[in-house]
């Protein structure tokens, strides 16, 4: 089953783009059923992988845009973050969860196109060319969306960078000594 093979990668895209596990699952479900209807027999080649990603990303973007059109959901974002915090807390109680939540929250302030580009390229490490194919735009457009997105994120995330740098220094010190 195609879904199982790509499940975690597609989930990674959806949860980062939408933030909300339930909504990410809904988007993933819509996308998979749409893919299922459009292609009777799947083949495990790279074209299908790209195609699937595109369907999932588009399903997520549709939801992002609908969300943006409903200002009422601003409050829901906080709930989303709380759910995620609880989730992340159970799994990994480290301070990284806080950072992740802050990053996601900052990401939410960007236009959908920039969010999607940054999710694929910066968060998940897709090559710009692959992201362009998934997003159905030119390489140049992906680059500029990433660039503009990063610029807009900068004021939100400068403090995080310091925090994570400090933690990094701290952990390398821990690694180098017997101190707890």
């Amino acid at each position, binding site marked *: 089953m195609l879904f199982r093979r790509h*499940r975690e990668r597609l989930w990674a895209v959806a949860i980062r783009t939408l933030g909300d596990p339930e909504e990410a699952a809904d988007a993933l479900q819509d996308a998979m059923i749409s893919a299922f209807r459009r292609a009777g027999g799947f083949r495990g080649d790279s074209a299908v992988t790209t195609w699937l990603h595109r369907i999932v990303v588009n399903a997520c973007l549709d939801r992002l845009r609908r969300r943006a059109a409903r200002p009422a959901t601003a409050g829901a974002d906080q709930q989303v973050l709380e759910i995620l915090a609880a989730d992340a807390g159970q799994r990994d109680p480290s301070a*990284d969860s806080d950072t992740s939540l802050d990053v996601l929250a900052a990401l939410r302030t960007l236009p959908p196109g920039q969010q999607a580009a940054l999710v694929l390229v910066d968060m998940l490490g897709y090559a710009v060319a692959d992201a362009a194919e998934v997003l159905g735009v030119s390489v140049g457009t992906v680059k500029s969306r990433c*660039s503009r997105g990063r610029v807009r994120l900068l004021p939100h995330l400068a403090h995080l960078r310091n925090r994570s740098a400090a933690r990094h220094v701290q952990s390398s010190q821990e690694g180098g000594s017997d101190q707890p």
Partner: protein
Amino acid sequence: MTRHVSAEKLARSRDGDLSRAAARRVAVHLAGCPRCRADADALAGLPALLASTQLPPMPDHLAARIETALATESAHRAAGATERSPARLRAGRRSGLPRWVVTDEQARRHARRPGPARRILATAAAAAIIGGGGYALVATLGGGSGSTANTASGSSVSRSDAKPAAGPPGSAPAARPSRSGLDAPAVRNGGVRPGAHAAPDFGPVVQYRHDGQVHRFTPVRTSTDYLPAELGQQASAALARVRSPGPVSTAGPGHTSGASGGASGGASGGASGGASGAFSAATLAQLPGCLGRVAGGQSVLLVDLATFQGAPAIIIVTAPPGATTGTQVWAVAAGCSSSGARVLAHHQLPPPAP
């Protein structure tokens, strides 16, 4: 000192998107301005910061929800396809009992016969009901696809490992060899109420190919009539029975050579097997495609050609290779093949108790 550099210009500079002169001006300014240098560093660190975000993996209940939605979609599609299916299946349904189903009464008759005759007849019955009276396939994976296949019973593992029995997908073994202690569980099972605690009996090895890897299965019979509300429980029970087939575990590698002999017979073996045998050959021939579709490279722990609410069905239990969670139970209508799988029900098994 020149004016501070905007974040946008810093980004364009990073992207190599400025004229040489403009880039030089930015560089000169950065050299003398700690504030803009900090901005530039922050910008440079953003991709790494974004990449460090940790999010929970897909929760199982959400994955199951999607799987079920897809299974339902698949069911709808296959239901549409059934309209065009061969008349044979429909004829079988109309009569209430496809001819390849061996009734409990038939099985009991065979089971009552004593001594050698009983053994021979049990073998014949086994050959006849391969098509669906209730054979289950116990999976062992071939092709080095490292997996959980060793959860299958020892006897099936040894047989499958000893020799790949079946031909390529589509030419599944049709005839069942008439030797080895495997016959004994067939007899015992025949005498017991379907779904009871009898040891399952094992059929010929079938293999299917997925993504270039060959996965192998050994049929066993559980005679279970699965019910929607009990699908998970019944599948777990069938798995348990298959994994510890009871006191009679005499099936050894000796069976393998026979099984592979049957495999070499292929379709012709099915033709010589009489009416039921012909149908079982057809069913077995469809199984590789069916498993490729439903299991798709997952470890297949069980494929039970049983019944679901009294109608012929294939119960398939799959799990992600090497995982103890994510075990899925699928009930698909008989006739499942590479071209369509009509999912009747789906259930996700809870992780095994530690």
